[in-house]
C-alpha cells in the first residue's frame, strides 16, 4: 500500500475547534444560568456590613445563619414581623386542595369530552382554550364581585376556587389530549362490558392515567406555588401565599434593606418548585411538552 496511513477500524477523533466552541458555549451558558442562584446563596450567608463593603460574587468571609433565622421567623411584612413561615403554611394550605381539585376536574372534563361527546362539548372546549390564553385581568373584577356575593372573597376556599377555575383549561386540555391517544376500542369494550360513565372513569381510565396525573401534579404544584396575582387579590390578609409575603418582605419600606434576609427568604420561596423540579427530572420536561398543549 503506497498510502502511508492505512485506514482501518474506527476513524480517529480529533477535538475540532468547532467541538471546543460548542463546549465553551455550553459552559458559558451554564454559568449564566447558575450565576443568580449562586449570588442568592452567597448573599444569604453574609452579614449586612460585608454586603455593603464587599462584592456580590465573593464568598462570605464568615458564614452567618442569622439572615435565614430572620427570614423564617422575624422578617417584617409591613406591620407584622413573623417572617415568611406564615406564608409557607398558607401556600401549602392553598396548593394542596387546589392541586387535587383542579386535577380531578380536569380529568373528568378530559374524559367526558374525549369519549362521551356531550352536548355543548365543543363550546366548553372553545371557551377553555380561550381561557388558557386570555390575560386574567379581564376576569378579575367581576370575579371579585361574584365571590363577595357568596362570601368567598378573601377566604381560603375563595382562593382555592380561583385556582381551580383558572387551572381548569390547561388541566382539561392535558387530559383530553392524553385520553385522545387511548384507543376508542378500549372504551367501546368497556361499554360492551356494561360500564357506565363513572365505572369506566374510575376502573378503566384513571388506573391508566398514571403518567399524566404525575405531569398534571407537577404543573399544578409549581404553578400554584409560584402564583402571585391570585394570592394578592383573592387570598385575603390571613392567607397570603409565600410569593406575596416574600414581595412584601423585600419591598417593605421600614428600616434599611436587609439584602441577606431578602435572599434567604427568596431561596425559601423558590425551594418547593425547585425540589419538585430536581426530583421529577424528565417528568418536568414532559409536563412542559404536555403543557404546550399541542392539538
Amino acid at each position, binding site marked *: 500500500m503506497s*498510502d502511508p496511513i*492505512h*485506514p*482501518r*477500524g*474506527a*476513524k480517529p477523533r480529533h477535538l475540532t475547534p468547532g467541538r471546543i466552541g460548542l463546549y465553551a458555549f455550553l459552559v458559558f451558558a451554564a454559568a449564566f444560568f447558575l450565576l443568580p442562584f449562586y449570588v442568592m446563596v452567597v448573599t444569604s450567608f453574609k452579614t449586612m456590613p460585608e454586603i455593603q463593603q464587599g462584592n456580590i460574587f465573593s464568598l462570605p468571609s464568615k458564614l452567618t445563619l442569622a439572615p435565614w433565622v430572620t427570614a423564617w421567623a422575624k422578617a417584617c411584612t409591613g406591620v407584622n414581623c413573623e417572617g415568611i413561615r406564615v406564608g409557607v403554611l398558607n401556600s401549602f394550605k392553598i396548593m394542596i386542595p387546589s392541586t387535587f381539585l383542579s386535577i380531578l376536574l380536569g380529568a373528568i372534563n378530559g374524559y367526558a369530552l374525549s369519549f362521551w361527546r356531550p352536548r355543548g362539548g365543543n363550546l366548553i372546549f372553545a371557551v377553555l382554550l380561550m381561557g388558557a390564553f386570555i390575560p386574567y385581568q379581564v376576569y378579575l373584577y367581576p370575579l371579585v364581585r361574584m365571590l363577595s356575593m357568596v362570601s368567598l372573597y378573601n377566604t381560603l376556599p375563595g382562593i382555592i376556587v380561583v385556582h381551580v377555575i383558572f387551572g381548569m383549561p390547561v388541566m382539561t386540555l392535558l387530559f383530553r389530549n392524553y385520553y385522545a391517544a387511548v384507543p376508542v376500542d378500549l372504551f367501546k369494550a368497556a361499554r360492551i362490558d356494561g360500564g357506565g360513565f363513572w365505572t369506566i372513569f374510575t376502573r378503566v381510565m384513571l388506573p391508566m392515567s398514571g403518567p399524566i396525573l404525575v405531569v398534571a401534579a407537577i404543573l399544578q404544584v409549581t404553578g400554584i406555588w409560584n402564583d402571585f396575582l391570585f394570592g394578592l387579590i383573592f387570598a385575603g390578609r390571613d392567607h397570603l401565599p409565600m410569593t406575596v409575603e416574600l414581595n412584601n418582605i423585600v419591598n417593605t419600606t421600614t428600616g434599611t434593606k436587609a439584602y441577606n434576609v431578602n435572599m434567604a427568604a427568596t431561596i425559601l420561596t423558590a425551594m418547593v418548585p425547585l425540589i419538585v423540579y430536581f426530583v421529577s427530572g424528565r417528568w418536568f420536561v414532559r409536563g412542559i411538552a404536555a403543557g404546550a398543549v399541542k392539538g
Partner: protein
Amino acid sequence: MDSSVSVRDLRISYGALDVIRDLQLDIAPGEFLVLLGPSGCGKSTLLNAIAGLIDVSDGEVWINERNVTWDEPKDRGIGMVFQSYALYPQMTVEKNLSFGLRVAKHSREDIDKRVARAAEILQIEPLLKRRPSNLSGGQRQRVAIGRALVRDADVFLFDEPLSNLDAKLRVDLRVEIKRLHQRLRSTMVYVTHDQIEALTLADRIAVMQGGAIQQLDDPLTIYNRPCNLFVAGFIGSPAMNFFRGRLEEGADGVRFRGQGIETPLAGYDGDTALLPGREVIFGMRPEHLLFDQDAVGRPGQVEAVVELEEPMGADSLVWLTLGEARLSVRCGSGRRYRPGDRVPLAFDISRASIFDAETERRL
C-alpha cells in the same frame, strides 16, 4: 479479485456487545446483493457501515478498489434509499432531488440534466412540483430512489425500502427496482427481512444471523441447499418440515429413522458422507414432498393422515400427521382433502436436506 464493494474483517461493537464480528464480504461490480435476515441480525448495521453512517470498530470498507473506511458518506460514491423514505418534507420533489447537488455546487445545467434523467427513469416527471406530503407511499419511495439516482453513484444501498408499503405496491416497486438494476447495471446492496424480495431480486443472497453471514449464495442454492438449520428454517414459506432422528445402516444403504418415520436416503445430494449412528435432523420442504398419486410406487412410501387443509387458490397446503410428526405438504388444488383422510406420501430424497443435530450444519 475485482470487487465493487469489499468488507474486510469488519467488527462493530456497542460497548461490550459485538453487533457484527469478523465479517468478510465481496460484492462484484454490477451485482445485486441482498442482505437477508430476521430483525436484529446486523444486516442494517452492515449496510450503514458500508454507507459510512456508523463508525466501524475494526476492519475496512473498500468501494471501487478504494479504502473508504474513514471517508464521509458523500465521498464514497454511494446513493442510499431508506425505509422511511427520509424525504425532506418542506421541499418539492424537484428540490429533494437536487438539494445535494446544489449544496455540492454543481452547475445549473448539470443539475437539470440529472434531475430530468432520474425523473424520466422513475416516471415521476408529473410529480416534480409537488411536496412529499402530497405523494402516495409508492411515489415517495420513487422520489427517494431518484435522490440516490441523481448522485450518479456507483453503488446503491437500499435499507428495507419496501417495508412501509402495502402488499400490492410492494410487488410493483419490486419489479421496478429489478428493472432499474437491469437498466443501470450498478452494484446494489439491498437489505430486507422479506425472503420473497430477496429471492426475486438477488443475484446473490447473504443470509445473516447473530452478526454473521450464515450463507452467501445465489437464491436457488440458498433455497435448495441451505448450509445450516437456520438458513433452512428461515427461507421458505411455509417453513421446511424437520424430523429428528438418527442415521442407520440398512439393506439398501443408509436410512433415516425418527419420529415414527423411516426412509432410505439413496440419492441424497450431500456435502459429506452420511455416517450411520449420527443424530441428525431431516428436512423436507412442503413442496418437495411427494403426495397422493405422486407418491404411489415410490420407495419408502408411507401413509399419512390429513389433519386440515388450507386452500390458497393456485395450490393448497395440507397439514398431515405421520407417526409422531406433524408436517405440511404443498399440492395442486385439484382435489380436496378431509380431516381423517389417509393419503400416500413419499420423500424426494434428492431434494432433502440433512443436518447434523449437534453442529446444525448440512451433511
